[in-house]
C-alpha cells in the first residue's frame, strides 16, 4: 500500500533535539527513508515554538506534519513545549512523538497526560537507536494518515 498523501509533497518533520550526535543519527535515518521528507532541526524549545509561529528566521517555515521532541532540552523543558503545542488550537492536531532518554514512568505518564501522541525511550546502543528511529519512519511516515494542514 503506497500512501499518496499530502499530494505527493514531502512530509515536513520538526526535530527538537539538543544533542548533535543523536540529531545527526536521526537525520541520517530519515534521509534514507522510503518516504520523502524534510527534517527541520532546532535545538531548544523556544526555537521550536518560534518555528511553529513562523517568527524571525523561521518566517518561511512550513507547518510540520510531525514533531519529534526530546524532553530534556535547555531553557524550556520538552514537557513545557509539549503542553504549549497541545494547548494551542492551531498546533494541537500535529502528532508529537516524544523521543527521549528517560524511561521513568513519571515522565511517560506526564507526556501522555499532555496528549503526546506517543513516547519512545531512546536506546543507548547505537544500532538500537537507529532501529527505533526507523520504527518511527516505518510507522508514522508510511501507514499513518497525518492530519491535513
Amino acid at each position, binding site marked *: 500500500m503506497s500512501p499518496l498523501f499530502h499530494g505527493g509533497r514531502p512530509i515536513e518533520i520538526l526535530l527538537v533535539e539538543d544533542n548533535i550526535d543523536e540529531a545527526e543519527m536521526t537525520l541520517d535515518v530519515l534521509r534514507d527513508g522510503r518516504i520523502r521528507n524534510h527534517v527541520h532541526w532546532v535545538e531548544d524549545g523556544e526555537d521550536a515554538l518560534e518555528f511553529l509561529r513562523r517568527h524571525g528566521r523561521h518566517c518561511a517555515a512550513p507547518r510540520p506534519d510531525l514533531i519529534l521532541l526530546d524532553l530534556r532540552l535547555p531553557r524550556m523543558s520538552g514537557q513545557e513545549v509539549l503542553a504549549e503545542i497541545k494547548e494551542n488550537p492551531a498546533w494541537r492536531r500535529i502528532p508529537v512523538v516524544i523521543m527521549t532518554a528517560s524511561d521513568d514512568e513519571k515522565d511517560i505518564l506526564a507526556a501522555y497526560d499532555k496528549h503526546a501522541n506517543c513516547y*519512545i525511550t531512546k536506546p543507548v546502543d547505537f544500532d538500537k537507536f537507529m532501529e527505533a528511529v526507523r520504527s518511527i519512519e516505518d510507522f508514522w511516515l508510511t501507514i499513518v494518515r497525518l492530519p491535513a494542514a
Partner: protein
Amino acid sequence: MPHSSPDRGVEVLLVEDSRDDADLMVAALSEGELRLYVSVVQDGEEAMSYLRRQGPYAASRRPDLILLDLHLPRKNGYEVLAEVKADDDLRRIPVVIMTSSDNDRAINAAYDLHANCCVCKPANQDEFREVVGKIERFWLTFAQRPRGA
C-alpha cells in the same frame, strides 16, 4: 524497551462493527510474535461499557491499546474517542483510529480529539497483515505505554 510484563500478555480492544474486518484484524494480530488478548466489541456503547467494566464486562481487563473504527452504530467513534480522552484514567490508553474515510476533515477531527494516530483501513487481507503488523510492532514493542491501572 517498554515495560509490558511478559506474563500478563498484551490486551487489545478492537471496536469494529464489521464482522469481516474484525475477523481480518484478529487474524492479522494473532500472526505477530506477541502474546495478545484481543477483545472485540461492535459498537460505541459496548466499547464504553467494556472500558468502564460495567455489566457483562465487569471482569474485563484494561486494554494496552485500542483500535477504534470511526463509523459505529449506537455511539460513533468520535464520541468514544472524546469520552476516553476526557476520562482521567482511560485517556492514557493509546487509541489508533481505523478509518475507511479518505476525508481530511474526519482525520483532522480525530486528531483534534486527541487520537494518538489515524490509520487507513486496509483494503484486502495482505494489506491487513501489513498494517496490523506495523501497528503491533510500533505500539506494542517500540513505544512506551503508561502502565495500566
